Structures are given as structure tokens and as C-alpha cells.
């Protein structure tokens, strides 16, 4: 590594650390890897003792690493303007090609290397260490831990480089996008015709592999990185986007939105990457996870769960991701130019949540009920629980994190508080839904009343936390 590359690498590493610690809990962020290791250990222990195959857990973790890599890979390319929506007026070294005598390609190469080292050490190593309970129980050998670290890191890098290559190609105009589409279609076709992709990924190496298999599985990483960096057109500028006058039209359809703040939030979500579809997509992921978990619970207990109660409780978790989407594109400071209070801004988020979040989780709930079949009284109470718990989660999130729910993911103390608040409500409901079905009338009434109560607590929590945030944002 030349001295310039080394210097860039060290500075980018430092920058990433400062960025995360600034965003997520200051010095508390240092405890995050330990928290990840403990969380993984707990999950591995619980899942293995309840009969889940260790192979399935490892597959899930590798899939997660790939997904995380796909997301992380876009950061180097999305540009400063997109970053500003999330980070404020931040300038990162990877965007400094215009001011420093360093090429964009060199910056991207070092950025990729920095990502590999930073995330491998800070996130993937703790996850691999989190498999220790499986070693203790004899489900895995000790060697599996460093192997899992290496293969999850490689999966993460595969994700990063796929995004790098895809974005690089997309900067090459119609021909690049056409090629990208062709490659995606080819991959889809191969998958449909039964080609086992997994054996060509680093995950395929986990159970041991021959040298040629290792080469085949790892070669795409440097290859995709080189393609991404080589084809990326540094002079590429996205064409300016135009839009019709949607604001007054939408506002006319929302009679409760006299100040227009809710429509502003809805426009943010609709016009940002992924559009309104991202809310549906994240709800869909939760729906699939709920399905798997409930199915798993049935396998373990041998008891038929209550579709209404169990889906109602778990699908309410989509409240958190929806709140994330509706707070991602602005901050409180941007509202302080107008005669608008923090209470008005939070109320607008609440209404946007009701418009976007509740129909999404209710839609998936109805899908589950229709698909799985449910006893009518349990479905009705499940619906009450779904809305009640979703409102409760909204209230807890606002009370703990204000306009910055992302902090939960990396701030150990906040995450633990959020987890505890969640467990208090969800655990009893899930026990009833998974173990006590068919649920007696008395319990159903209690659950229904409980659902209304926790919904009320959620609304009260968000309202009562407003003065705290009012003071916080004027400090």
C-alpha cells in the first residue's frame, strides 16, 4: 500500500468511526460490538435449544451479511446530497475527488477496503463470536468460528461489490443499464432453472471446500470490485428530476392535514428511492419472518398456534420500520423556520404513520388470516392487538428516540430499553397465541382490552414525550 493509500485508509477508518459514534450514542457506541456478540449468543442459544438446525441459523447470518453488504455498497456512490438527508451537512472523504488531487477511482478502492476491514472487525467478528454457545453444546467445532467470520466477511464483500458493479454500470447510460438488466435476467433465469447459486457463494465454503471451489466462490469479489471501479463514470450526473404539483392534490384528500406537514412526510417517502413500495417491502419481509417463526413454534411445541393472535402481535413490529421511513428524510431543525412546534411535527409523523403504517400491517394481517385460516373471534382480537401494539411501539420509539429511531440500532442503552419495553407487551401475547390456542373467551376479552390499553399507552407516551423533545431540540 502506498503512503497516500495508507493515509486515506486510516483517515476513512477514523471518519467511519466518528460518524457512527456521532450518530449512535457517542462513546456508548464502543460497547456496540460487545452487545452484538451477546445478542447473537443469546439468539443462537435460544434457537438451538428450541430445536432450530445450526445450519439454518448460519445460513440466515450469511444471508444477513450479504444483505448488509448490498446496502453498505451504495454509500460510496449515492453522493453527498443523498447523504445530507440523513447526516446533515456532512462531507466525507470519499466525495473529495473534486477538491483533492486524488482520483475518484482511488478513493472508491480505498473506501471498499475500509468497509471490508471496518465491518469485518466491528460487526461480523462479534457475530461470529456469538456462535460460541453452539461450540459449547457441540453443534459446531471451534474452527467454525473463524471460518464463519471469514465466510460472512466474504458474503458481506460480495454484497458490497455487487452494488459497486451495478451502480458503476448504471452510470454508463442506457447501454450500461441494459447490460445490467441482461445480467440480472440471466441470473434470474439460471435460478429458476435450478442452478444452485449458494455453492458459488462464500457461504458454500463454510462446510469445507476444495481449492477450485474456493477460487470459484471468491473470484467474483475482486472481479466485481474491479468492474465497478473501472466502469464507474466519474463525470456521471443524474438528470434533474421534475414532478407535478402533487402537494395541494394530496392535501385536499387529507382533510385532517390543515398544516400540510403530513403530506410533506408522505411525499418524502413516495419520492425517495424505493417509493411507497419500500414500506410494503419491509412489511413483506416481516410477514415472511412471522410466518417462519410461527411455523417453527408449531414444530417445536406440537400445538397449533392462534393465527389471529400470533400474527397480530408479530406484524405490529412493522411500526418500527415504518416510523424509520417517515422520519428518515428530515429533522426537527428544518421545521423551525415556520410557525410549527415540535408537537406539530410529531403529530404529523403520527398521522403519516396512521396513513402508511397501519394499512400496511393490517393488509399483511388479513393476508395471513385468509391464507392460514383463523377463528373469527381470535382474528378480531388479533386485529385489535395489531393496531394497539403498533401504536404502543410508535409511542415507545418517539419517547426513546424522538426523530432519530436509527439510534436504536447502534445505541446499546436505547436498544436495551426498547427491547425491554417490547418484551413486556409481546411475550405474554405470544405465549397465549402460540401455546394456549384455541384461546378461551375470557382470555380473548383480556387480550382485546389489553390491546386497547397498550394502544392508549402508546399515544400517551408519544404525547407526554413531546415537551422533552421540545427542550432537547432547542438546547
Amino acid at each position, binding site marked *: 500500500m502506498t503512503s497516500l493509500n495508507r493515509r486515506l485508509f486510516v483517515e476513512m477508518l477514523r471518519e467511519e468511526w466518528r460518524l457512527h459514534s456521532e450518530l449512535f450514542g457517542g462513546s456508548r457506541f464502543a460497547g456496540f460490538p460487545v452487545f452484538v456478540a451477546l445478542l447473537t449468543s443469546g439468539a443462537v442459544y435460544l434457537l438451538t435449544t428450541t430445536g432450530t438446525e445450526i445450519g439454518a441459523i448460519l445460513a440466515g447470518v450469511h444471508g444477513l451479511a450479504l444483505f448488509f453488504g448490498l446496502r453498505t455498497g451504495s454509500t460510496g456512490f449515492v453522493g453527498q*446530497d443523498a447523504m445530507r438527508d440523513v447526516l446533515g451537512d456532512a462531507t466525507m472523504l470519499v466525495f473529495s475527488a473534486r477538491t483533492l488531487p486524488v482520483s475518484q477511482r482511488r478513493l472508491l478502492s480505498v473506501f471498499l477496503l475500509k468497509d471490508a476491514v471496518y465491518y469485518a472487525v466491528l460487526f461480523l467478528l462479534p457475530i461470529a463470536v456469538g456462535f460460541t454457545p453452539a461450540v459449547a453444546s457441540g453443534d459446531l467445532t471451534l474452527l467454525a468460528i473463524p471460518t464463519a467470520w471469514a465466510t460472512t466477511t466474504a458474503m458481506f464483500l460480495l454484497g458490497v461489490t455487487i452494488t459497486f458493479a451495478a451502480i458503476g454500470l448504471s452510470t454508463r447510460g442506457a447501454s450500461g443499464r441494459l447490460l445490467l438488466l441482461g445480467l440480472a435476467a440471466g441470473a434470474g433465469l439460471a435460478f429458476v432453472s435450478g442452478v444452485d447459486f449458494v455453492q458459488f457463494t462464500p457461504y458454500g465454503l463454510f462446510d469445507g471446500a476444495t481449492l477450485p471451489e474456493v477460487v470459484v466462490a471468491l473470484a467474483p469479489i475482486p472481479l466485481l470490485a474491479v468492474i465497478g471501479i473501472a466502469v464507474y463514470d466519474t463525470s456521471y450526473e443524474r438528470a434533474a428530476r421534475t414532478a407535478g404539483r402533487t402537494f395541494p392534490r394530496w392535501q385536499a384528500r387529507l382533510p385532517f392535514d390543515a*398544516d400540510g406537514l403530513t403530506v410533506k412526510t408522505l411525499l418524502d417517502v413516495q419520492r425517495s428511492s424505493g417509493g411507497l413500495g419500500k414500506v410494503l417491502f419491509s412489511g413483506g419481509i416481516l410477514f415472511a419472518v412471522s410466518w417462519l417463526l410461527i411455523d417453527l413454534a408449531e414444530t417445536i411445541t406440537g400445538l397449533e398456534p392462534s393465527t389471529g393472535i400470533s400474527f397480530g402481535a408479530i406484524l405490529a413490529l412493522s411500526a418500527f420500520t415504518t416510523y424509520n421511513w417517515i422520519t428518515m428524510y428530515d429533522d426537527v431543525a428544518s421545521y*423551525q423556520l*415556520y410557525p410549527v412546534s415540535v408537537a406539530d411535527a410529531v403529530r404529523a409523523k403520527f398521522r403519516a404513520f396512521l396513513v402508511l403504517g397501519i394499512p400496511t400491517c393490517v393488509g399483511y394481517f388479513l393476508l395471513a388470516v385468509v391464507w392460514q385460516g383463523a377463528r373469527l373471534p381470535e382474528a378480531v382480537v388479533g386485529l385489535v392487538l395489531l393496531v394497539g401494539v403498533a401504536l404502543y411501539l410508535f409511542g415507545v420509539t418517539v419517547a426513546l428516540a424522538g426523530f432519530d429511531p436509527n439510534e436504536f440500532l447502534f445505541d446499546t442503552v436505547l436498544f436495551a430499553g426498547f427491547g425491554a419495553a417490547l418484551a413486556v407487551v409481546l411475550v405474554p401475547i405470544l405465549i397465549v397465541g402460540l401455546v394456549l390456542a384455541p384461546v378461551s373467551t375470557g382470555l380473548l376479552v383480556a387480550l382485546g382490552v389489553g390491546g386497547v390499553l397498550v394502544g392508549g399507552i402508546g399515544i400517551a407516551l408519544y404525547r407526554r414525550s413531546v415537551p422533552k423533545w421540545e427542550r432537547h431540540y432547542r438546547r
Partner: protein
Amino acid sequence: MSAIRTEKLRKTYGDVTALADLTLDIEAGELFGALGPNGAGKTTTIGILTGQLQPDSGTASVLGHDPVAEPVETRRHVGILPEQESPPSFMTPREYFDFVATVRDVPADVVEERVEQWAQRLSFAEKLDTLSSDLSRGQQQKVMITQAFLHEPEVVFIDEPLANLDPIVQERVKRYLQDYRERGNTLFISTHHIEVAEEICSRVGIVYDGRLIADRRPAEMDDEESLLDTFVANVGSDEEWTEPTATAGDD
């Protein structure tokens, strides 16, 4: 009659004192320029006067409203143009003005007319339907200037009004600010450009280390005195800095 008043306003951020007992009295119809180096406390003053920040101590009043106790009511009567705020990324300027008009209760037909005038004045008519995130910094600044004046408030706070604007638009903005003041409105602008303050302000206060250290009316200053001299005399001069000389071995 005072449009803006502060009395011993104090604000600290940790160990840093941004405002140290700042006292100001700005009459209605003045174009007041807060002139000072970076970090003098100008932006913090605007933040407190518009109810965005809470002072540690002291009092403030804008058009008879207390921005500390009634931030929303204060903001209802003023226009604000911060230095580092862009229009919402996913709205077009036209939609943004619709939004501002809704929040500020400006009738739709009035908004149409004013937006038309501003788009002509600042030359951004062809950008009215472009998403704000795809506008240049200069275009974004034009949109932000427009939103600050859309409801034609009696008091407007502006942090660096000419940032990112081309010279022609700068001239138009300067002329508009002076016209606006002549119509009896009050403007509080923050700048570190002495020549801008000297050219357009009816009164200039030099702010340094969180204090008002000089107060001048450019029109009443005699030929011997300049704002630059006053600034240098109070804030420090360039003579304090000596360029290091090249040493042997330097290329």
C-alpha cells in the same frame, strides 16, 4: 418603536460562550447588519430571536413577542432564511411554496402571484417543477429567499443573504432588501462581508465574542471613518498575522 430587543442575552455550548450578555435594540424600519467574524455569535442570535434556540439567560422580544416563551407565535410574524438550510429534497419549489403558504396561512391566489414575481426576480422560473434535491446550491438559495418573504412579514432574519448567488442576482437581492426596508419593514441580516453591510444596511452592529462591540450608521459616518477601520480596530487587524518566510530547503 423597537422591533427587536435583547437584554443581556447569554448562550453557551459546553465550554464555548456563543453570546455573552448581548444587548440590542433595533427600531422598526431598520435594516440591521450583524457584522462579525466566524463564530462571533451572529447565527446563535438569530436562532434565539426566532425561537429555535433557548438562551441560558437574558430576555428577547420580537414585535412584542417573547421568542423564548412563544417560539411558534414569534415565527408566525417573521421570515427566516438560515445559512445552511435547503428546501425539502423531495418537493419541487412550486410545491414547497404551496407548503410554506399552507403553514403560514397565505391565500392560494396571493401565493401564485408572489411566486411568479420572485421566480422572475431571481431567475428561477424554469426550475419551479424540478425536485429541490436536483437544484444547484444557488437555485436552492433563491428558493429559500423566496420562502422567507412569501408571507411578507414585518421582520425578516437572514443569515448570509447573498451566499451562492451570482453577481446579477446579488444586486437584485440587495435592492429588494433596501426596498423592503423602505416599506417600513425590519430586517436583521448576519454577514461577515463588510462591503455588503456598508452598502445596504441602515445600521451595523459589530459582534465579536458574543458581544456587541460597535454600533454604526453607515450613512452618518464621515469620510474619514469606514466600517473596515472600525471592524479592524475592534476585532483585530491583518497586521497581527505575518506570513512565514520560506526556509532553506523549501522548493
